[in-house]
């Protein structure tokens, strides 16, 4: 449908008029686009260029007189910094952990919600709720109302369960025992709905007649899932994972709130924030930011490729 529409639309430009008239019509077409395009270039590309320039400078707000060209010094410092190496590792663990867990959970839940059952709409609405809690609020909620060793819900439930058997309940201090995992779980809770929604949309776009035909031919649920549903879902899984990675790599709120970057949980965005906000070392913060950008570009290249293949399928190009 869309593919035909798109093609006729592009074709609708018709025979191109010559010379000045054509140029005028080209500009008339471009005009509505220009404000948005110029705005984006100014607001997003210029700052990044500035970051790139500052990353090669000696610039610490505490020593304003020593500003100057530093060459690759900042980058050398960034790459030899233990904190930085830890932060890279933490970022990878955090992102991969959250994306994989929420993707698996999201897939399971999307499969559950793909069938018709009583209260399906209600369950779907309940599932979306975690995504609609403001991230800082969610992080505070997990830290104080759930993880708190004295009166958090988790230890409260442990007290309950052990109380039934009249035993002494274990009361772990979740955040100190597993700082990174406490952040990961809180994030998985927020991101599973996102994954679930994309995968559910993917499941519901399956060609039903083909699956019915396979079922009549005697394929069982597992065979249908493995050889039909999963291949169809592949691009949705990729899309969910990559979009999720782009958002989750940038996680700041949860690290800032739950552990303040302590106990080995400082990821790259948090580290850049502290170098800039607490140490006021602008050169080093910029170099770290440039490293983050390069890392992101690697993920983003894959993400763009996936989106553009989905996009081409949709518009028939």
């Amino acid at each position, binding site marked *: 449908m*869309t593919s035909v*529409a*798109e093609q006729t*639309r*592009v074709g609708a430009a018709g025979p191109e008029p010559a010379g000045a008239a054509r140029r005028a019509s080209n500009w008339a*077409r*471009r*005009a509505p*686009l220009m404000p*948005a395009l110029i*705005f984006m270039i100014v*607001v*997003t590309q210029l*700052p*990044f260029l500035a*970051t790139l320039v500052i990353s090669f400078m000696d610039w610490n707000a505490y020593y304003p007189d020593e500003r100057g060209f530093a060459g690759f010094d900042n980058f050398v410092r960034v790459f030899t910094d233990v904190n930085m190496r830890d932060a890279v590792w933490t970022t990878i663990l955090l992102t991969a952990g959250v994306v994989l867990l929420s993707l*698996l959970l999201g897939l399971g839940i999307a499969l*559950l919600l793909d*069938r018709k*059952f009583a*209260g*399906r709409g209600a*369950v*779907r609405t309940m599932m*979306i*709720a*975690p*995504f*609609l809690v*403001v*991230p*800082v*609020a969610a992080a*505070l*909620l997990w830290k104080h109302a759930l993880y708190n060793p004295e*009166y958090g*819900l988790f230890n409260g439930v442990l007290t309950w369960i052990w109380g039934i058997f009249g035993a002494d309940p274990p009361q772990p201090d979740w955040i100190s025992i597993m700082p990174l995992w406490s952040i990961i779980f809180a994030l998985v809770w927020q991101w599973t709905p996102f994954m679930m929604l994309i995968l559910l*949309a*993917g499941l519901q*776009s399956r060609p039903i007649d083909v699956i019915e035909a396979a079922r009549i031919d*005697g394929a*069982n649920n*597992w065979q249908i899932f493995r050889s039909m549903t999963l291949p169809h879902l592949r691009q949705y899984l990729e*899309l*969910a994972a990559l979009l999720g990675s*782009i958002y989750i790599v*940038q996680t700041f*709120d949860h690290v800032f709130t739950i552990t303040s970057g302590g106990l080995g949980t400082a990821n790259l*965005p948090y580290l850049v*924030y502290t170098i800039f906000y607490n140490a006021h070392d*602008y050169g080093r913060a910029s170099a770290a*930011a440039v490293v*983050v*950008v390069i890392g*992101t*570009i690697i993920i983003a290249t894959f993400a*763009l490729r996936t*989106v553009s293949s*989905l*996009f081409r399928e949709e518009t028939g190009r």
Partner: protein
Amino acid sequence: MSAITDTGPVPATRDERGEPVKKRRERGGIWLTLLAWVVGILFVLPVVWMVLTSFHSEADAATNPPAVFAPLTIEGYREFFTGGASPWPPLLNSLTASIVSTVLVLLLAIPAAYALSIKPVKKWTDVLFFFLSTKMLPVVAGLLPIYLFAQYAGLLDNIWLLIIFYTSMNLPIAVWMMRSFLAEVPVEMLEAASMDGAGLIKTLRSVIAPVVMPGIAATALICFIFSWNELLFARVLTATVAQTAPVFLTSFVTSQGLFLAQLCAAAFVVSLPVLVAGFAAQDKLVQGLSLGSVK
């Protein structure tokens, strides 16, 4: 995962004979329905717990095991709104920043999306992917120059700086979403309108607007949510005057002692606009979050 293991044990004998298969599927169905409900309840539980705790007294909120059936009170809310620093200025700042930036986003995105779908410019896919690529640049990379610029221009602690930043943050999402909505306008209707001699304004009003209105609403709600949620830039670029609600939440916690009910009340109040906007946009949420690539 559980769905797979639940349907897995059903043996391959389910073929040919219709009836036992159906019965079995239904019996399994009850368990799957139950499982779906349990999972749904587990996921919503922290939100329910937040709301419940916010209506408990501080003493009841900090008990172990939890006092689920403790008497309800609005003490936490009263304390939040009147106890210390008033939350109204930050809430109003958040509202201003989110609404004004959303309006700006729509004003910029709708014409741009028009030029990328209905009357496309040359190389419109490249332009579209340029917008997307800006979304992939980590925001932290732009933080320092924007801070330095704000300091230089005297715009620190000014809500307009956040408005501009939030506009740039949401513009790519809005362009992608609006393009996918505009692409749904049937080309026959556009042709019919132009044959009837309808001008641009008339076409926009009577052909395009009715089709894309729900899309505009969904785009607006999603941009609103993202602006409202933002913490990092708001924290760095604002202080006392232009402080937003998420920043207020973080500062409010460290200065309180026994505060769980009040904290939950605060978290709920700050999340409420997002919950409302999100449930209102529920049907279009996927399309927005996947930048219009999934319907």
